[in-house]
């Protein structure tokens, strides 16, 4: 019975959930850094940086995550000694970075050009204007897409189980192989992910709502003297 498995396994799975959360959090934070850098590459005037970003995004978006994870897991090992956690986190960060880059690029480019011009005309340098004027607006605008990508990132983190990590899914696989109850165990694992994601969504929605409220109604009140034609 699912209930039995749930009750007998929850200390284990709670611990695994914590690992999944940590892993995802670290991976997504790194992913945001990577994404920001790549986004700047893409909007920069340098052809070389542009090209690097283009190739990076094309390759990451053009190959399955599990392949990327396995390549990075073994590829990184040739270069540096990394714990499993960090190998997994970096692989996920590299993957999410490509998607986050596109989100950031879209958000930055959606900010009215006038904002940069006004900043420059006030004597702000390009980096200063980016940091103080463009990025804060872009981040805010990116939040819905970013929230969505974070949910995807959380789910995708399950694949590190296949390089041996004892995250939620890795633990689920191990449990099922010892209790011989595949189906029920997997359903329990699914439930954990579902709850995690629903909690996360709840907070993203709240954040979005608060940001929307922080902003004023789209138009200022105006005296509209109706004109008869």
């Amino acid at each position, binding site marked *: 019975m699912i209930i039995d498995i749930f009750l007998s396994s929850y*200390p*284990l799975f709670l*611990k695994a959930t914590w*690992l999944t959360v940590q892993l995802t959090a670290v991976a997504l934070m790194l992913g945001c850094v990577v994404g920001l850098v790549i986004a700047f590459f893409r909007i920069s005037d340098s052809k070389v940086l542009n090209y690097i970003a283009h190739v990076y995004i094309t390759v990451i978006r053009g190959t399955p995550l599990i392949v990327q994870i*396995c390549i990075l897991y*073994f590829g990184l*090992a*040739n270069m540096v*000694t*990394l*714990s*499993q*956690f960090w190998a997994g986190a970096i692989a996920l960060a590299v993957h999410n970075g490509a998607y986050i880059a596109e989100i950031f690029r879209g958000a930055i480019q959606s900010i009215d050009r006038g904002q940069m011009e006004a900043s420059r005309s006030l004597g702000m340098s390009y980096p200063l204007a980016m940091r103080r004027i463009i990025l804060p607006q872009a981040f805010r605008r990116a939040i819905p897409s970013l929230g969505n990508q974070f949910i995807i990132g959380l789910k995708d983190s399950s694949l590190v189980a*296949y*390089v*041996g990590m*004892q995250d939620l899914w*890795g*633990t689920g*696989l*191990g*449990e*099922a*192989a*010892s209790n*011989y109850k*595949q189906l029920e165990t997997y359903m329990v694992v699914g439930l954990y992910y579902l709850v995690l994601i629903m909690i996360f969504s709840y907070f993203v929605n709240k954040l979005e709502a608060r940001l929307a409220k922080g902003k004023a109604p789209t138009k200022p009140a105006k005296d509209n003297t109706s004109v008869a034609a």
Partner: protein
Amino acid sequence: GSQESAPAAGGQASGEGGKKDFTYAMSGVYKPFSFKENGQLTGFDVEIGQALAEKMGMNAVPITNPFETIIPGLDAKKYDAVIGSLTVTPERQKAVLFTNPYYRSGSQIFVQEGNTSIKSKEDLKGKKIGVVKASNYLDWAKKLTDEDKITQYDSDITALLDLPTGRLDAVITDQVVGLRFIKEGGGKVIDVGEPLSFDEQAIAVRLGDQEAVERINKALDEIVKDGTYEKISQKWFGRNILQKQ
């Protein structure tokens, strides 16, 4: 070091009491040799590793790694050794250094209960066989049926569980693993025919690490001699699995 998270391997890391870590890998989905019980990695392979570590004056750190990448993981220095029921094969001997065998077991055919068409390995021709990726059972399957009839899994247990679904006609795996599965009611499965072979399972270390082989062999001798091995084997199987049956 805890067994949950693999430390940066290589044995340099110092663990509890200033002892060096002895990090060794297994699939973790190979009951009763390696599996999880209440989250603790346990099983015959785990305890053998612990006994060996003690003799070597090291700190035992068992970790899990998918079976199909267990040898590359060793190469990539993610752990010092594989104590993961690796069968010694000539092919693998090119990739790793094996110690002396630490147990012997058989490769066994399992089928769904009530299946009358498969009585021996000769009956497997053209039948759908499930095995674990990168195992010596895969080599057996390739000999006994057509290549496109073989399904490769990450875990022997998963393969055994896919017997009753009708997607497989037979599974080849370790005798002990299958019998344990049957005993614990994993599914309506039976073993058929004689074991295909008696295999020697050994501990693997990286090529060139002769020193480690000697150190482990010495420790292995010691635990066999002082009865530790006997105790562990009796606990898990009710007999000594180092001896030829």
